């Protein structure tokens, strides 16, 4: 379960365009780390390098090292498919499979990982939905389409789907930006519970959210459009929002730009 992440000297490209440059950071197990920064600063791109989703984009490639525990995700002979089974992801827009029921959505990842008995599947589906604080709302409609749920429920369904396969790390790319405040609160509460079991990395545009949910915060910025995004500073969340050591961070969180 929950493993530590060590990134060193990471560059990510789209074709010949350098999107993020020379990023190094450590993420402790069982913590919530928030990435903040203006649009286009590469925080989502960086998040997607942590489960090798960046290279799914045509022209996407990565240089550098990402250690998950004691394994380099970009080492020779590492299969990106098996990386993604260890590092789960929740996306900006809720994306349950529209052709599957609530139950099948949660079981989707399990079915990729091997043969489970029906009773085992039932148990894991129930546990995952409970883990995502969704069980009580959907237990009577497990066979209805997942796309029939509300936006906030769909996003929690996606979280249940991601945690069903017991990943080491859970990546969240602006998971609340398409949700109303009440659904957002439900997800934020959930993040607080999930960090007991998982290492969580969350990208957010909402600085209050970063302040509420995260233990550590990383601020990304870019010098100008067309320039690569860089990690400006990373520290305890409390410190970033009260007394950051870099002027640009203070300007950003106090709303002077971005």
């Amino acid at each position: 379960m929950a493993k530590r992440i060590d990134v060193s000297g990471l560059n990510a490209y789209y074709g010949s365009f350098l999107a993020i440059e020379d990023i190094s950071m450590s993420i402790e197990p069982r913590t919530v780390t928030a990435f903040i920064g203006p649009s286009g600063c590469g925080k989502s791109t960086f998040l997607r390098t942590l489960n090798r989703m960046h290279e799914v984009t045509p022209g996407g490639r990565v240089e550098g090292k990402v250690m998950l525990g004691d394994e380099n995700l970009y080492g020779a002979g590492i299969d990106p498919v098996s990386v993604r089974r260890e590092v789960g992801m929740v996306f900006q827009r809720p994306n349950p499979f529209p052709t599957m029921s609530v139950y099948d959505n949660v079981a989707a990842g399990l079915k990729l990982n091997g043969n489970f008995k029906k009773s085992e599947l039932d148990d894991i589906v129930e546990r995952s939905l409970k883990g995502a604080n969704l069980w009580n709302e959907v237990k009577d409609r497990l066979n209805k389409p997942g796309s029939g749920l509300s936006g906030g429920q769909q996003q929690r369904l996606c979280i249940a789907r991601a945690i069903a396969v017991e990943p080491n790390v859970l990546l969240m790319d602006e998971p609340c930006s398409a949700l109303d405040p009440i659904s957002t609160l439900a997800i934020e509460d959930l993040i607080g519970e999930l960090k007991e079991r998982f290492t969580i990395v969350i990208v957010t545009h909402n600085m209050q959210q970063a302040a509420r949910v995260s233990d550590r915060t990383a601020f990304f910025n870019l010098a100008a459009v067309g320039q690569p995004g860089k990690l400006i500073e990373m520290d305890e969340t409390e410190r970033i929002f009260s007394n950051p050591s870099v002027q640009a961070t203070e300007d950003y969180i106090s709303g002077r730009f971005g």
Partner: protein
Amino acid sequence: MDITTQNPTSPPASRPSEVEQKRAARAATRPGDRVFLALSRGSGVFLLVLMAAIAGFLTYRSALALSENEANFFTTFEWNPTGNPPEFGIAVLAFGTVVSSIIAMAIAVPVAVGIALFITHYAPRRLAGPIAYVIDLLAAVPSIVYGLWGVLFLVPHMQGLYGWLDDYLGWTGIFEWQGGAPRSLFTAGVVLAIMILPIITNVSREVFRQVPQMHEEAALALGATRWEVIRMAVLPYGRSGVISASMLGLGRALGETMAVAMVLSPAFTINASLLDWGGGTFAQNIAAKFSEASVMGRDALIASGLVLFVITLLVNGTARMIVARRKEFSGANA
């Protein structure tokens, strides 16, 4: 009326401005809306009238022939409308039409889905374009050219396959071969398969291309391989589209005339084996007999055309039912 000279600062509130007057006048009539409504409603009604007219014509002329028919129209293995007494039935034609179309679908649908997936999800971009272009080109080849190719190239080259099928699957009875020229329903089905391949491929390709990126990424992020992404996200999403595509292809296969007429060696018999001579299809039979038929003969052929019309309706209705049955899981509500 020139507002600026009459009232340089602002028009009085009581009188509507020129723009407001025009807007009100337009709102009362909305000529664009009316014309468009009339056009679209007219087109819809026209289509229904056309279908009714075709059905009415077929039914009327069929009734003339059927009232003279001395044999059972559905079970008779004979076509002799000018005999004394006139005897004709569509058993052989219905069997041949359905069987050759089933063979065509069994070959064409998997291949077409495979090509469509290759173009949209596997092929490098510079290869996908040309392949799609060639498939489009295939759709534009006239059916008589497929017929020529079938009879001049495919038939002489089918001997080997027929022999192989007879050796290994002959025991089923379906693939037993007596050694005649391979101009059977099976060869007709193969030609039909090639003819309906482009339409099924093209429509499937469009459907697969429209699978939202976010569903494919959802599967990838769970650790799905490329094939698993296709199985989890692409095929279920495209399912109803592929069914519709197959129905377009099936419609063409059921009604195809020239290519079947050229390849098939017709006879009014039903063989258990698909590889033996004999059989026929509705469209092929009409094409072969129409020019030399008497008035009675023509009406009999029209009666067979009516049956084809009904079969096509049934097939399309069934397909719609299949698509509608899982509507809430179609992805259309995502």
